[in-house]
């Protein structure tokens, strides 16, 4: 498929700007100690993802990508962050997350992950896979940052934020490699994701009920 943006849209700049916003919002989430702030960062992350998909749709003039982009904005930028926010407020509002790493150490690790992602993706995929090639290293880097967020936090809800950021990164990979998957598949994936986040929220509140707080290090009844 030949990607031709309309003249009025500075093409590489738009995509690069949005890709930058995507990565920076993920890093911002990783730098937060407050869960609510991390959820807001996730919202911007999703909006950047939706923006990239919309740009692709405009450029290629494909309706199904536009529809998928709007769905992404509605579900990932709207419903899921609201669900998470409600859950965070129910659990006591301004939750302090308790990272295994302090924020400066965590940022250093994230920086290293980004560098690794950018250098290795070039080696693996070469340059010029598509005009969206700049998104691919961003996607790999964000996957790694999401995983780091999941393993470095003890707070259950913060691990969920890490998971949904990781899923966003995989969506970005799908958009930048193949301009998105067939619409039916995208819709199914979004539905599963939505139900999944709702269930994770349910389990977070059960953990808070049975264990007194959302601290996952207290989940240690089952061994061996």
């Amino acid at each position: 498929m030949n990607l031709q943006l309309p003249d009025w849209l500075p093409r590489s700049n738009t995509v690069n700007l949005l890709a930058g916003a995507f990565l920076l919002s993920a890093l911002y989430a990783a730098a937060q100690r407050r869960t609510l702030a991390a959820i807001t960062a996730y919202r911007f992350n999703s909006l950047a993802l939706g923006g990239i998909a919309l740009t692709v749709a405009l450029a290629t003039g494909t309706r199904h990508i536009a529809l998928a982009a709007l769905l992404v904005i509605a579900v990932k930028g709207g419903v899921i962050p609201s669900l998470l926010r409600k859950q965070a407020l129910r659990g006591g509002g301004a939750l302090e997350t308790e990272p295994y790493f302090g924020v400066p150490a965590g940022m250093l690790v994230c920086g290293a992950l980004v560098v690794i992602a950018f250098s290795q993706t070039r080696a693996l995929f070469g340059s010029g896979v598509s005009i969206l090639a700049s998104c691919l290293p961003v996607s790999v880097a964000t996957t790694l940052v999401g995983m780091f967020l999941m393993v470095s936090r003890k707070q259950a809800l913060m691990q969920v934020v890490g998971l949904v950021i990781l899923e966003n990164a995989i969506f970005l990979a799908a958009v930048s490699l193949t301009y998105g998957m067939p619409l039916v598949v995208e819709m199914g994936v979004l539905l599963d994701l939505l139900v999944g986040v709702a269930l994770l929220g349910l389990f977070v509140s059960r953990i808070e009920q049975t264990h007194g707080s959302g601290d996952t290090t207290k989940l240690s009844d089952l061994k061996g």
Partner: protein
Amino acid sequence: MLVLLPLLLLAPLGAIACLVPALAARAGRIATMVTAAAFALALVLAARVLAGGPVAGANLWLRADALSALVTLVVTAIAAACAWYGEYYMPVVLAREREQDRWPAGRYEALYLALVAGMLLGALANNLGLLWIAIEGATLASALLVGYYRRPGAVEAGWKYLLLCSVGIALALLATVLLYYSAVHVLGDGSRGLHWSVLRDVAGSLDPRFVKLAFLFALAGYGAKAGLAPMHSWLPDAYSQAPTPVAALMSTGLLATSLTGLLRFHAVTAACVGHEWSSGLLVSFGVLSMLVATPFLLVQGEYKRLLAYSSIEHTGILTFAIGVGTPLAVFGGLLHLFVQSFAKSLAFLVGGSIARGAASRRMDQWSGVLEASPALGTLLVGAGLGLVGLPPAATFLSEWLSLAGAFASPHRGAAVAAVVALVIVFAGLTFHWGRMVLGRARPRFTDLLPAASHAPLWALLAALVLLGFWLPAPLRALLDRAVEVLS
């Protein structure tokens, strides 16, 4: 198509029926009827596939080849047996729960049928995106069932299961994207590029780098769902906390469905870059799973956790045998996928009866089961024979064929490691079973379930033993066809 659609619609419709207030009181019976009807349809489907080759439908989004038919048979047969047993088991469980912890009537059965629906869609999907959606859907339904009991352990198990499998399944989505990308320049964009049967036909012209990468992510993602070491850490917790019929279904049907997902990627990878690369990985992870599970099997004190580690070991045998790749070994592996389901579900279900009777989940409270209840004792012995793979259980045959195939292939070193693991498992399980079955009966042991609850257990045992003596010609033909799908 005329078979596929009813097969896929039965379980969701049954789930909705269970939620209707007027029918909720009889939800247990509905679940049994629906799964039994699905089993009958699965038999019809298998006959169709044998007679006329793969059955496709819905513009190739669905397609049943011999492998799908085999998995459909496993899923529906075990789901029917577990639902039948659940009719007697779940009321006893409910009677012990506190009033405020009980679920509304019908909700358990609805989720159970949703899980079955997800597994069936996963078995019959030809589109890899649809396969992903189905397996993720089954994961979500089963996560709620794992957290069925309102105790801290169940919450912990449900949380770990959902979070770890969500990460795994996210990686499987990346695998799907990468495979789609490797095909875009051959097939163009559109749903055809995700159809497995199409991908396999054009595998030679796919970009090998991305196919390899896709297989690695699929191995991590679907492998985690199937319980391959080292991605297995959620599994003992989930199986030990889930209600017994659900644990039995997850360790057989969900395992088979997730493994099929991985095998679909394996088939495309093998057709693209040659057989050795992905086979080597399957063999290594299979043997690793067997070796990782064995020490935990030896020292385990809780029955369901023991079965969970046994499940990891059986997944290991299967993956190893299919990875070896010679027709004999793959035949053995697929036969094992089929017959181990009967052994493992029987072991879970009979354990459920005994745990209720002894009022304990720990095996050291279970001595003298044979004396206390000859029927349960016999069933427990049968399940034990099935798990270690001794005649007359059919697992003896399948493990024997797998190993014979492996020793006749270049993977002899791995075969030796597998034999070592099997011997250790044999010693460990014999020790546990000796303590449980023999000895003096506990005075307070009473079988709380009605005698009718033994019927599904006897049916499972009969299937397990019968298949050990006699492999019906149609089943054998189906297995042969499934071997062809994978080679």
